[in-house]
């Protein structure tokens, strides 16, 4: 049976800003190895950083990060053990009444920079799955 998974790495870290930086750096390195272009790599790294920051701020003692590179996508999962997040209740940071808020743009940026973002409620906690598709191969390449 064909297996499209080319590589996968996952780790569990304590809930800290050092962990956020490590997860962000890992995302950047894996996106580079996966062949994303220089404009896309920082976007992926930032989306992953925002997800990890959310996990630290709203989670509990530790966060789990996994990175899976397939033939057509980079799939990143960030999970925490916090009280859970309902994405439908996150205020729209572009709404006029929210535009001058000092926070609340993390989820928005994740959605802006990734192709797919999925939320899954754990018990306890939240898992965010961030997916970035590779560009389709050009004819003749």
């Amino acid at each position, binding site marked *: 049976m064909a297996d499209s998974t080319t590589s996968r790495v996952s780790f569990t870290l304590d809930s800290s800003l050092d962990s*956020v930086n490590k997860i962000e750096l890992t995302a950047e390195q894996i996106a580079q190895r996966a062949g994303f272009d220089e404009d896309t790599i*920082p976007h992926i790294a930032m989306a992953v950083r925002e997800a990890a*920051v959310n996990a630290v701020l709203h989670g509990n003692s530790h966060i789990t990060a996994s990175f899976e590179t397939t033939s057509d996508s980079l799939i990143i999962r960030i999970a925490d053990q916090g009280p859970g997040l309902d994405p439908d209740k996150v205020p729209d940071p*572009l709404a006029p009444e929210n*535009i*001058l*808020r*000092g*926070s609340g743009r993390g989820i928005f*940026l994740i959605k802006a920079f990734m192709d797919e973002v999925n939320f899954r409620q754990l018990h306890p906690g939240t898992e965010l799955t961030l997916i970035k598709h590779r560009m389709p191969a050009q004819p003749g390449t």
Partner: protein
Amino acid sequence: MSMKVHTRQVDGITILDLSGRITLGEGSVTIRDAVRDVLAKGSNKILLNLGDISYIDSSGIGELVSAFTTVKNSGGELKLLNLTKKVHDLLQITKLYTVFDVKDDEATAIASFTK
């Protein structure tokens, strides 16, 4: 790399030259403290020079917004100078580019403050 702030005065305007990263736990608190110090010293015309900011995340963007509203609520003005492409793009995406008064030239920025 953490963020650094260098403060100088030009024609009654306080210029904060920022360098490094503005992220949660790094530069965001530094900006808050720097703006608070400027206001405490009686100046409320502030130009944030972001030319050497290599990276900013949503916490950093939020801190810029908070600084803007804090200064505005004190009757002052806060403007941004020398945005890198990354910061410019983030402010566009978050629709904050038109909220801030953004300048590309220091002399023009200094002249634009209310005298």
